[in-house]
């Protein structure tokens, strides 16, 4: 059986299995972990094959896995697995405190597999229409993860999520159709297939491609959280349970970004790199600055991280905008780096919420004394997010600077530096507020989590640091391959 | 009659229990204790009065009560042109209250009329009368080691020879200064023993660096108990000599004021020649006092050259005094009914010659000082006494005239020969040290002219009338003299057997001290001594020193002569025969 087919079916099957399981938490928990490992192992094996150089495709190229997809698939695998493991712990706490019923937990576990399935689908789709559908499907699959609690604010943010993303994605659909109509007949083979479009981009009408890209930017940008169409994101990310936010921010946004990158590749090769780069720079700069100003006044830890997601989407967009081999490399690297970092960040908010019972950082304080490990993990997440060297995100930011320097775009370097500096200052001041000093509000759980409970976080932290200083050859290979595909070199 | 207008106006507002008239321009109104603050405030601010003095008195032997007399000089607020009472209506109105010895309390006037603050503090020190609502209840007159419940001026309090034991200096209780709140302030003490403050008074400057943030002071180091000394013991001839020793510089003004208070009480008119010579003496006193002060104002800024030359000129004024009275400084010629010593024509001629010298030389030196821009910089803008503050605290003399308020007893309440003499009241706007020194200089000039006029107008009459008079017990009167430093007010209540029942001597500087704090603020330490000096505070000098051998605890008192002799010759060491 084709491995790609397995990728799509296994998570779905797992979801169904979870649905029919009896309401026993211990069982659910272990099973969830087990199945998650199985799914991730499968995904990674597929990635492994790509690294070894295999071109995977199925259903007449309807679905395929290239190096670009492999990067994102590995993110789904690694981040997804660790977040899923953390989710079991998190749900245990929620159950203990009676915030949630066991049935809801079961549904949550089951849905998270469906969610994984839809995301995987969006990554491996070669058919652009189908990719659009898959991304829309991720919205639907994830909305239940967000609104798991069924209270008013949960439901409302779920509603907002669906409505806004759908509006946005409608434009993406338009872009898809436009692309198809522009390409149909001008490209060899099926004009719906990404591989074909990319290969024959030069023969498509330039003006049409420009229009396509703008609609794709709005469409996938809404889903990915590029300003000013990001507005749904803070509400939704702040609302759901910590693991959901981690998944949404860590993985889902990247999937939407992948959609945009694919369009980027097509349009860049058709209408020239200058156009896409300029558009992406505008979008990236706008996103960076808007999110950085929003960040300053955020005292809710989850909202803060949500704005961070926007900011980092801005960084990716900026990277794409700076362009060149190094810029693209940086943007893709950033996807991975941000995925790990944001997963860690949101997961640590789970710990923090358990300690303080609040998300308001002005009411925290003294975390380093209460839960040193959580504080350190939180610190690592923040450090990485603001681009402290030695952590993964710095590498990509450094590379973006490098790309700009080599390109000679000194103004861009300046803009980027200013935005990052604002983010840095805004973030660290919040971090210090929560971590040091005296406890400002009340403390609900006055001790460190168990080491086992913290395992996924530590794993993420190790990944962040490792990606920050170490060079993983297979990963670099994937990135280089992808860049080559996009640049057609 | 004078004063009636004020009594009527007061009566319309406040219930007056009793009105008594002491003499033509002095009326006393008795009011209820609780009406006291309003009555004083009304007269002070609404009718244009200045607080001349306040007398606390133990009248338990007379009416079983303590009494307070707030004497107000009704002359108009003088804050702006025309804010003045007509010349023939100026007078003194005294508000009197009786305080029961059971409660010993009365409502404080100070919150309404700040000028009362020292008087009310003193009333507690001396009589134990408590002013309810007085914002500053610290001890004023008595030293800090004085026993708490001993009020010396009560008639039954203590024998005048009795004096409580002194504490060792390191056991003295600390005086509570009004130290400003705020960090980083240094307390700079000025005095009681300080090179520029010849008077023993302690000024505490609260400074930030060289800038004075605020100041507070502790005075009355030389409190000699003179008022107690006079009571029931001295007759009026002796009183004159005692009063002259109140002050070393302007003693003569005290002497006249004291004697005139007694004369006023019995409505005694002294001969015109005596009046003229009293004026001459007091103006000579003004001459040398102002020269001294101008000289010192140069000296404290470090201008020794000007100081030395001004003191050289001052020597002439001393010589002048010697010609007129026979004494260089303490004249001792005032008695009830006139004077003891007359002048000869030769002396008058010689005096006029010296006057000429003083006038020309003083002009020369003054011009030189005025031409020195550095000196002007040290004087101008320093130690400003705000006009309103001066008004609120009833400042007197050059101090208030330097702030642009035309207040001079010689002009407001002409006494003695002044009714016949023309002179201008020196008023300078500005309120700084320069303004005060300028007032002094102008007065110096007018004094010369007054003395000349006196010599010219002086009639050839007797200098004393037969002092056969009879004083009525319990009568009292107020006398006022413009001393070099301002208005000296003496108040005497007659006792039986030609003795004084209560003598209240209020020297000019007493009214100037309370506002000093506001003159200090914002100036520099370097200016502090200058500001005190420009106030021309009253000096109480002594010319005796005591030599103590700390090993044998023996001591010997040296007179001025002994000391000088020893300093010059180094013979007859006083250490030889200590006792």
């Amino acid at each position, binding site marked *: 059986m084709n491995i790609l087919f397995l990728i799509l079916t296994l998570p779905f099957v797992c979801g169904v299995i979870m649905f029919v399981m009896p309401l026993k938490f211990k069982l659910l928990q272990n099973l969830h972990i087990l199945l998650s490992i199985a799914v991730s192992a499968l995904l990674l094996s597929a990635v492994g094959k790509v690294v070894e150089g295999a071109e995977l495709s199925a259903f007449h190229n309807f679905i395929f896995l290239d190096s670009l997809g492999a990067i994102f698939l590995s993110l789904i695998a690694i981040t997804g697995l660790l977040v899923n493991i953390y989710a079991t712990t998190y749900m245990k706490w929620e159950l203990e405190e009676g915030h949630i019923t066991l049935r809801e937990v079961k549904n949550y576990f089951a849905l998270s597999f469906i969610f994984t399935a839809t995301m995987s689908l969006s990554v491996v789709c070669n058919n652009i229409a189908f990719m659009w559908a898959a991304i829309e499907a991720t919205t639907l699959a994830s909305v239940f993860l967000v609104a798991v609690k069924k209270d008013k604010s949960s439901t409302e943010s779920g509603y*907002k999520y669906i409505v806004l993303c759908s509006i946005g994605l409608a434009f993406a659909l338009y872009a898809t159709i436009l692309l198809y109509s522009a390409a149909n007949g001008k490209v060899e083979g099926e004009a719906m297939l990404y591989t074909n479009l990319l290969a024959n981009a030069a023969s498509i009408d330039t003006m049409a491609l420009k229009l396509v890209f703008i609609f794709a930017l709005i469409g996938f940008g809404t889903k990915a959280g590029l300003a000013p169409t990001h507005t749904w994101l803070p509400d939704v990310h702040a609302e759901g349970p910590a693991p959901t936010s981690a998944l949404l921010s860590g993985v889902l946004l990247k999937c939407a970004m992948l959609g945009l990158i694919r369009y980027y590749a097509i349009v860049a090769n058709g209408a020239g790199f200058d156009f896409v780069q*300029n558009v992406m720079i505008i979008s990236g700069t706008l996103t960076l600055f808007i999110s950085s100003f929003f960040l300053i006044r955020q005292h809710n830890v989850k909202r803060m991280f949500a704005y961070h997601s926007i900011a980092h989407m801005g960084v990716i967009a900026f990277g794409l905008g700076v362009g060149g081999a190094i810029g693209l490399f940086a943007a893709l690297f950033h996807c991975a780096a941000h995925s790990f970092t944001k997963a860690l960040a949101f997961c640590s908010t789970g710990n923090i919420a358990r300690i303080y019972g609040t998300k308001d950082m002005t009411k925290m304080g003294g975390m380093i004394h209460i839960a040193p490990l959580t504080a350190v993990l939180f610190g690592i997440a923040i450090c990485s997010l603001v681009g402290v060297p030695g952590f993964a995100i710095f590498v990509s930011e450094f590379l973006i600077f*490098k790309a700009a320097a080599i390109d000679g775009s000194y103004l861009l370097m*300046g803009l980027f530096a200013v935005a990052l500096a*604002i983010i840095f200052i805004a973030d660290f001041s919040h971090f210090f507020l929560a971590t040091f000093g005296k406890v400002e509000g009340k403390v609900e759980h006055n001790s460190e989590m168990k080491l086992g409970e913290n395992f996924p976080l530590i794993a993420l932290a190790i990944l962040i640091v490792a990606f920050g200083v170490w*060079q993983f050859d297979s990963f670099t290979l994937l990135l280089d391959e992808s860049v080559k595909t996009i640049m057609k070199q | 009659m004078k004063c009636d207008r004020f009594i009527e106006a007061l009566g319309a507002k406040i219930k007056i229990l009793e009105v008594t008239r002491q003499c033509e321009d002095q009326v006393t109104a008795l009011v209820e204790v609780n009406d006291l603050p309003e009555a004083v405030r009304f007269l002070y601010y609404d009718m244009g009065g200045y607080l001349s003095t306040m007398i606390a008195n133990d009248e338990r032997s007379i009416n079983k009560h303590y009494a307070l007399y707030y004497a107000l000089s009704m002359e108009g607020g003088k804050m702006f042109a025309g804010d003045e009472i007509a010349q023939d209506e100026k007078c003194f109105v005294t508000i009197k209250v009786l305080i029961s010895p059971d409660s010993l309390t009365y409502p404080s006037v100070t919150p309404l009329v700040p000028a009362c603050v020292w008087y009310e503090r003193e009333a507690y020190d001396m009589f134990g009368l408590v002013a309810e609502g007085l914002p500053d209840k610290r001890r004023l007159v008595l030293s800090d080691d004085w026993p708490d419940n001993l009020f010396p001026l009560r008639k039954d309090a203590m024998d005048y020879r009795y004096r409580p034991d002194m504490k060792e200096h390191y056991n*003295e209780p600390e005086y509570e200064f009004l130290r400003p*709140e705020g*960090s980083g302030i240094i307390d700079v003490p000025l005095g009681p023993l300080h090179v520029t403050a010849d008077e023993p008074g302690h000024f505490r400057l609260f400074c930030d*660096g060289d800038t004075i943030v605020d100041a507070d002071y502790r005075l009355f180091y030389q409190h000699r108990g003179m008022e107690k000394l006079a009571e029931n013991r001295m007759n009026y001839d002796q009183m004159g000599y005692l009063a002259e020793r109140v002050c070393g510089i302007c003693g003569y003004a005290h002497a006249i004021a004291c004697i005139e208070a007694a004369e006023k009480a019995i409505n005694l008119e002294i001969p015109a020649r005596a009046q003229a010579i009293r004026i001459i003496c007091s103006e000579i006193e003004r001459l040398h006092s102002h020269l001294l002060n101008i000289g010192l104002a140069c000296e404290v800024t470090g201008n020794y050259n000007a100081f030395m030359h001004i003191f050289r000129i001052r020597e002439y004024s001393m010589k002048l005094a010697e010609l007129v009275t026979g004494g260089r400084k303490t004249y001792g010629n005032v008695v009830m009914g006139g004077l003891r010593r007359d002048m000869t024509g030769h002396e008058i001629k010689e005096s006029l010659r010296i006057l000429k010298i003083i006038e020309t030389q003083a002009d020369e030196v003054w011009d030189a000082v005025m031409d020195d821009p550095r000196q002007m910089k040290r004087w101008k803008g320093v130690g400003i006494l705000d006009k309103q503050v001066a008004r609120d605290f009833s400042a007197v003399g050059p101090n208030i005239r330097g702030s642009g308020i035309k207040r001079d007893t010689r002009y407001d309440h002409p006494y003695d020969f002044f009714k016949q003499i023309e002179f201008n009241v020196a008023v300078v706007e500005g309120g700084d040290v320069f303004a005060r020194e300028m007032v002094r200089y102008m007065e110096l000039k007018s004094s010369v002219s007054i003395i000349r006029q006196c010599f010219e107008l002086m009639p050839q009459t007797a200098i004393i009338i037969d002092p056969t008079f009879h004083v009525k017990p319990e009568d009292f009167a107020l006398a006022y003299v413009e001393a070099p430093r301002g208005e000296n007010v003496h108040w005497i209540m007659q006792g039986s057997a030609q003795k004084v029942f209560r003598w209240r001597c209020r020297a000019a500087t007493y009214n100037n001290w309370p506002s000093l704090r506001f003159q200090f603020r914002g100036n520099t330490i370097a200016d502090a001594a200058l500001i005190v000096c420009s106030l021309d505070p009253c000096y109480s000098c002594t010319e005796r020193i005591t030599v103590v051998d700390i090993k044998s605890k023996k001591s010997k008192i040296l007179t001025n002569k002994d000391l000088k002799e020893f300093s010059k010759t180094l013979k007859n060491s006083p250490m030889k025969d200590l006792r």
Partner: protein
Amino acid sequence: MQTIYTLFLLTSLLSILLYKKPLLAQKLGFGLACVISLYAAIFFFSNLKETLIWELPGNFISAPVFRLDSLGMLFSFLVSLIAFAVSLYSFEYVKFYEKKANLAVFASLFNAFILSMLLVIASDNVFSFMLLWELMTLISALLILINDGKGAAKNVMIYLGIAQIGAFCLMVALLIMASFAGGFEFSAFDELNIGFGMSMTLFSLLLIGFGSKAGMFPFHVWLPLAYCQSPSNASALMSGVMIKVALFAFIKFSLFLPQFVQFGYILLFFGALSCVFGIIYALISNDYKASIAYSSCENVGIIFLGLGGAFYGLGTNSPMIALLGFIAALFHILNHAIFKSLLFMLSGNVYTATKTRDMDALGGLHKKMPITSIIFFIAALSICALPPLNGFASEWVIYKTMVTGGIEEGVVSRFFFALAIIALSITGAMAIMAFSKIYGAIFLGIARDTKSIEEAKEVSFMMLLPLGLLASFCVGIGIFMNDVVGILSKIVLTLIPQTNVSTYGFISMPIILMVMFLCAILPFVFLYLLKANNKEVRITDPWACGFLYNKSMQIGSNAFTGDIRKALSFILKYESEIKLDGYFSKAVYTHKTHDFFWDKLYEPVIHSIMLIADKIGIFQNGRTNLYAGYILIYLCLILIFGYYYI
């Protein structure tokens, strides 16, 4: 050299692993740090003229290479030397922090900090340099947070914020340089082929980047805040050494640029600015740690003056001036490292004994802590640049540079060198005032607040030993200044070859000492010949004009500077207010001074950013239809703009 780095790393890891046993970790951590840094100091000093290279094995990003040339050796030596003294001191000192923080963490961070500084000096490519540079910043921030005092977080935030802005400047500058050089190894940076405008920009970026770290005005604002907060041993390391690392990097990188004479002028100007303003704020501060911290700004300014001379020399091709300038700067760097770390450690002694940093509460500490007091006296004399101590020696060389530079023809150069000398002399005069005040207010007179010094007692021998050592360095380097200059000149010759050097025309410190010694005999001879009264001295209260003496009568730190604050109020914006309620109440006196640069430079920026942040919130008001509207508007705009204009 890799041994040293590895040892520090291991010590750091070992300490953190002994998390549960803080006391053991503290002994091990600081003890080992002491031994290793002593070894390192000896190692670096003995290899002063070598060049050592070490490549880190493993597949690290951009394969880090560590290279130490002579200059790097000198700075590594400096770091190790000060680290040795500070760790010896910390061995006892950190016990005061037992309750506040985990000593294992402290020890670990301490070692990591030393390591990061050494590695920054040695790192040889852009990525690893940036990484280690920020690591150093971050560890120092954590060291500051050990104290966890009130407002610590905010102060550290200002520190990190400015450091980050600086770091971005550096990153931009280094990357641009790298892009011109065509390689990211610093060894490839030589002979950059760039024009005047670009090299000016790069130079400015480097100056901002390293200057902000070094505490140069106007990027100094973090410095007093951070140093006040941190434990004294950390301040000693930061001020003593970390600043020097920044200066090292500045020298290293700006030498890669093509030289222009304007560099020298810029440095002279900012150096003058820094030293004058630094000392002004040091003078008026009432917190001794803040004073000492501001004096770091001042000394950095002085160092920049020396460097300014050096760069002027390079720019005009006058090697003699360049040589003198570099020697002066390095000499002052060396001296400042010694006396500043000494002063910070001494302030640590004072703080542990008294628990207050307010000089208006101290006084009379000499009687309780005589040795600390005497060492402080030496340190104060030395930082005031008084002969015959080391501060004077290096300032003299700087003066020499300035005078030599000022002879040259040319209005501009004369102007800048004259400016530098004037600034240095003003600094000198005010340093006298500042440090006599600090010394006087802390150690002399009588206690202003008796409570604070009641329980004070002299610190232990172990804490005094390193202080004594550094104090003897102060004296020793001062006296043997010409030898030190000789050593430094050899190092500088590796930077700018083809110059011959001599100390001709230099002053000779031993002769100054000899003359002073000669003079010292005279008074005793006179006293003996004239048979002076040698009776026992009678002890009394201080003279208070015959009034009872009160301890508030002695001058305090604040009142001492009253006049100068007034005189300088055009800079300090000194405001004072006396409030009085009615005629008879106590006055309330308040006064404050402003940090000129904070008010004029930082405040408006922060304010406007905060304003935007506040206003921007209205766009995110939770209304879904509005959000949908944004999407449409954005679409329209980007269509119009993106489609038609790009």
